[in-house]
Structures are given as C-alpha cells and as structure tokens.
C-alpha cells in the first residue's frame, strides 16, 4: 500500500508538487497522467527518498519513507523509464545482484528465503526474457528486455509495491502489451502499483485508478472503469488546454 499525505516539493521558489494526497491499495494500479513537468517523476523520487519532501509525507505500508528508508525500499521495486543494468554482467547476474541487495535487509518480510539460481531463471522466464538471453551480457539487451529483468526483480523480491516511471515509453506495441500483462498479473497477486505514464490508452486498460496531474496539482482521480477511452482523452486534453495556471489553489 502506498500513500501520500499533503506531499509538497519545492525547488527554491518553484513548487513542483502541491499538497498531493493519493492512496494506492494493494491490488490496485494507479496511473498518473500529466504533461511534461507535471510532477509525476518528482512524486516517485519522493517515494524513493531521492528527494526530501518540503512538507507532507510519503508512506509505504504506513511507513514514512524518510524515517524508514531501508524498510520501505525493501518493500518496493522501482522501474525507471530506462532501466539500466550493469552491461558487463548477464541478465541473470544482474538479477542475482539486485535481489541479493534487497534480500539482505529483509528480515521479517515474506522474501527472507534464499533463492536458488534455478528459481531466478524461472522468474526471468516468467517475466518473458527470452531464454537465450539469460546468460548474455546486458549490453546486448533491448530496452524491453531490461524492463523484464526489472519486473523479474519485483517478482523474486516479492515486492508489495511497484513504482514505475513511464516504464513502457519507447517499447514497441508488443513489448508494452507484454509489460501490461505482467502488471495485471502482479496486481492480481495483491501488489500496489503506482505508474507514471503518457499512454492514455493503456492507462485506461491496465489501470484500476487514474489521476490527472498538471503543474504539480492532482486535478482529478477516478476509477478507470468509470470512463471510456475517448472520454478519458477528451477529459485529459480539456484539462491541458483549459488553464495555463493552476486550477485549484489549496
């Protein structure tokens, strides 16, 4: 479960995020939509503790990420837009390395058990990495394959939270379709997923909830099933064109 409480981030005089309140329960996919510079990545970086909030809180399973950076990090997996792995290592070795790091801090969490190499291979297969690439160096991987290693990490780590920053941008339609299927599978296992995206179509299809952000404000959020594809598009565009300045000042 992830949650923000009046989360605000200022860079100097500039406020990138205004009093954000959102909640993603387990088994939900919350899709953050918004133009470039809306504050989506800022929100995710605040969860990652890469940025310190100016005020408010970001919580994972009820734990403040600033107070409990290690505990909260052990509960989520982060997949950036362009997931980078060590090019000199194979996909399997990368997965083993990152799993090893998360694994070490996880006393008392579901995934304390040691995972064998075979299990890692199995998870990579499940994530859809072509088996002939398992033992090849990541330098030869496509972007989609690297994202799959990221998903495999979330699966093997048994992460309860996924933080995704435009994970499908730049993927070909088939690859992003496969990615969406993986997300739906994770969702059905009870994972709480926060995903920043520009893909309205997929947000409507994959997401359980949709939020529209503009200039640091969450303008609207609603369940994905309550809106059709075309309505979502016109709603989004109407928000984007309507005002140059923030709509609601809180």
């Amino acid at each position, binding site marked *: 479960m992830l949650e923000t409480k009046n989360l605000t981030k200022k860079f100097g005089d500039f406020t990138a995020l205004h009093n954000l309140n959102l909640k993603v329960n387990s088994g939900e996919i919350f899709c953050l939509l918004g133009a470039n510079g809306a504050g989506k990545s800022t929100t995710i*970086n605040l969860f*990652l503790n*890469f940025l310190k909030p100016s005020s408010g809180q970001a919580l994972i399973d009820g734990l403040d990420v600033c107070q409990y*950076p*290690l*505990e909260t*990090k*052990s509960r989520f997996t*982060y997949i*950036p837009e*362009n*997931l*980078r*792995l*060590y*090019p*000199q*290592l194979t996909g399997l*070795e990368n997965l083993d*390395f*990152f799993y*090893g*790091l*998360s*694994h*070490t*801090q*996880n006393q008392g969490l579901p995934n304390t058990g*040691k995972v064998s190499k075979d299990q890692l291979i199995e998870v990579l297969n499940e994530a859809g990495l072509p088996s002939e690439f398992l033992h090849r160096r990541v330098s030869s991987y496509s972007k989609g394959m690297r994202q799959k290693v990221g998903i495999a990490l979330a699966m093997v780590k048994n992460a309860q939270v996924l933080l995704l920053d435009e994970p499908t941008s730049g993927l070909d339609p088939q690859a992003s379709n496969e990615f969406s299927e993986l997300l739906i599978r994770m969702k059905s296992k009870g994972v709480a997923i926060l995903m920043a995206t520009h893909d309205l179509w997929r947000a409507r299809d994959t997401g359980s909830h949709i939020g529209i952000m503009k200039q640091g404000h969450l303008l609207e959020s609603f369940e994905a099933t309550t809106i059709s594809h075309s309505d979502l598009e016109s709603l989004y565009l109407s928000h984007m064109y309507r005002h140059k300045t923030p709509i609601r000042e809180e």
Partner: protein
Amino acid sequence: MKNSAIYRIVIKDFVVSIRSGKFWTLAGFVFIFASVSLWLGQSQYNRVSTIKAEAIQQARHQWENQGEKNPHGAGHFGSVAFKPITPLYMIEAGLTDYVGEWVYLETHKQNSAEKRPANDRSVLFRFGQITPGFLFRFLIPLFVILLGYSTFSSEKEQNTLRMLLSQSITSKELFYGKLLSMFLQLAIMIVPVFLVTMGMFLMQDFSPFIPHMFILFMAYVLYLSTFVFIAIGISARSRTSGSALILLFAFWLISTILIPRLTVTISEILSPPFSSFDLKVTHDEKQDNKYVYGYKGRDDFSEMYAEIESELMQEYGVGDADSLEVNPFGFAIEKTEEEGQIIYDKTFGQINDLYKSQNKLHRKSVAFSPLSALHFLSMGLAHNDLQAHEDFLDQAEEYRRDLMKTLNMDIAYNSRKGKNNEEGNSHLPYVQGEEFWKSIRTFEYDELGLIKIISNHKYDVISLFLWFFASAFFANWSVKKLKIN
C-alpha cells in the same frame, strides 16, 4: 557473509572490473615490473655487497701488511671505513648512488665520503630507476587511479546508480563494498610481490631485516590506501568518469612528481649546497694554515712540543727531558689531532647544518605529498637516507679519532722503551709491526636500530597516517553525499 550487501557489491565490482579487461592488464604489468625489478635489485645487491666485502678485506689486508713503520707513519698510510648496504637496498636504492659509501681515514684530516662504488653501477640501474620502490611509489598509485576513477562515476553515467540506490542498502554498505572491492584488486597486485620479497629475505637469511621490510610494506599499504580513498572520493563527487580521471591524474602528478621536485629545487635555491670542490678547498686552507702547526694562537709545533715536554717533566718529576720514560711527541701529535678536530667539528658542523636546513624543507613537503613521506621513511628503513649517511660518517670519524689516539699513545708510552729506541728523543726510529696492526680493530658500522629509525621518521609516519585518515574521511563523506541527478 555471502548475504551481506557489502559482499555482493565487492563481488559485483570485482567481476565488472575483470570483465572490462583493465584489471588483468594492470596486474600483469605490476607482476612483470616487480619480477624484473626484484631480480635486478637482487643482482645489484649481490654485486655491490661483494665489491664492498672484497674492498673491506683488501683494505684490512693492506693495513695489516703495511710492514714495519712508525705508528704515525701508519696514521698517514691510513685506513678505510665502508658503509655496508642492507638487503632493503634491493627495494629502495635511496641515496646510495649519490652520497659516498666509503671514507678514507688518515691522521690530521677528516675526509668527506667518496662514492666510488657507484661508478661501477650499470647505466640501466642508475638511470632507469627500475626498483620495486619506484613501482610502489609512482606506478601502483597510478594504477589504483585507473582502477578506481570510475567506481562511482560510471554508475552515474550508466544510470545504474538509480537502481543501486533504490535498493535497501545504506551508504555505509555502499562505501565499504566499493572500498573492499578496490582493496581486493590492490591486494591481488601487491601481495604476491610482498610474498616473493619475504621468500627472498628468508632464503638468504636476511631475517634481521624482515621487520624493516614488513614495516616498509605496511607503509606501502597506507600510502596506496590513500590513493584508493581519494579515487573513490573523487569518483563519487564527479559527474563523469572523464572529469574524475582528470582530477585524479592531476592529484597524482602534483603529489608524486611536482611537489617532490619543487621542494628539491626550492631548497637548493634557498640554501645552495657546497660543491665537493668548495669543500676540499675550505678544508685544505684550514689544514695548511691553522692546525697542523698549532691552534689557539700558537704557530709553531716546536713551541707546543716544548710546552708539553715541560708539563710531562713536572708530572714525572724528572729534571731532564732525556730521562722522561714517555715520549712527548706522541702527546704533541695527539694534541694537534684534538685541536684539528675542533676545526673539523666546526666545518663539518656547518655542512651538516646546511644539509639539515635543506632537509628541513624536504621534511615539510611531507605534509603536502604522501610520496615524500613514504620515500623518506623507506630510505630510512633501507639505511640509505641522509641520517644513515651522517651516522656512518660520525661513526667513521669516531673510529678515526680512536685509531689515531691508539697510534699516538703507542708512540707516547712505548717508543722510549725497548729495542726500537736507540736514538733518544725522536719518535721516528720507533717502529711497530704486523702484530700491532692486527691488534687494532676493523671499522664496523653499527646500523641504526629500528626504533631509532622510526623516531627519526616520525613526521613521515604521522604524515602517512594523516593522509590515510583524511582521505578515508573524504571518501566516506563523498559517498554519503551521493545524490541522484
């Protein structure tokens, strides 16, 4: 252990470093350079110590077989004191090639050291500096930089840092993981060199010098760790590997080449050294004009002789000089020795002061360059630094004074007794032979003890530790400050 994040990072970094290919290239170079330089060092050591042993033997042989002569004549014939080299010469040649290694001991004169054995050195050895010391002081620090400059900056450039920092690891674990991976790579390079050197020392029964060698390697570890820390710190602070490399290379250049060279030049400008020619002229002047025929206002040897003779007549209660059983000549010549020594103490004192003031400036440079600190310490441990040289000269001079006194007192007490004295007052017809020459001990240099060496070099040791801790602090701080973007 296998589950710790530190262990994971060590292994990951090590594998990445090995696969990038640079590690084995550098390690291979260290191995080859170390093998060649140890082999060269060993053969030079054998050569020089054989030459010296032969020279010592030959000098002793000449001394014992100088034939029958008056002891004062033996004083003019003279003897030679050799400074031995220690096995650490194989690693650190120090000043051996630049300062004298033997000194000619004769009556009336304190000579400065000569450096003949250096002339026999192979050109390669003298100019190429192919010594393990050179490898450790200059090249391995450079290799440490090449291994470490990208340790964090490449994570930034590849954007893997984002993934790394989104895992539940502490900055401490990250720091120690990176650090130990660097140390692992460094250890693979230097531990074999240490073991081979240790083996060479054990096989040749150099055991008295194993503690020195061990301390030298500990100093190398401190010194190289400083470079490891600085490489990690700069890498963590830099946005790109390129800028990290440039900064680190500049640091290497300044601390290993620029500062040591600059201090030599500046100290020479501030207090120009005597050339050995100047030195000789000064000596000869003093010798000719002042002390042989008297000092303290006397300008006539016979005047002093008469003074001593009357003192002795009083002491022995005889009214006539011919009935003295001791020979005033022995005392008079010893007196000229002692008075000459006062002048030499002054002259050599001035030279020593000059060296010391130059040395002081060098010494200050250790605050700015860990290399200087390491170099001074290693020369000290190898007994071929300035202090060891001065200590050798002091011991040789002490021996010379002792030797001359023995000869003069032999004239004083024995020349008027027995068969050799037929001509009365003069010392000249009196002669001594082989048995007497043999009874005089050979010069043996007593090396400075390890504790004395360390205390002589305490500022170097302190400097190495300060550099170590300061750079460790910097590295730790830089890693803590690591940020995304």
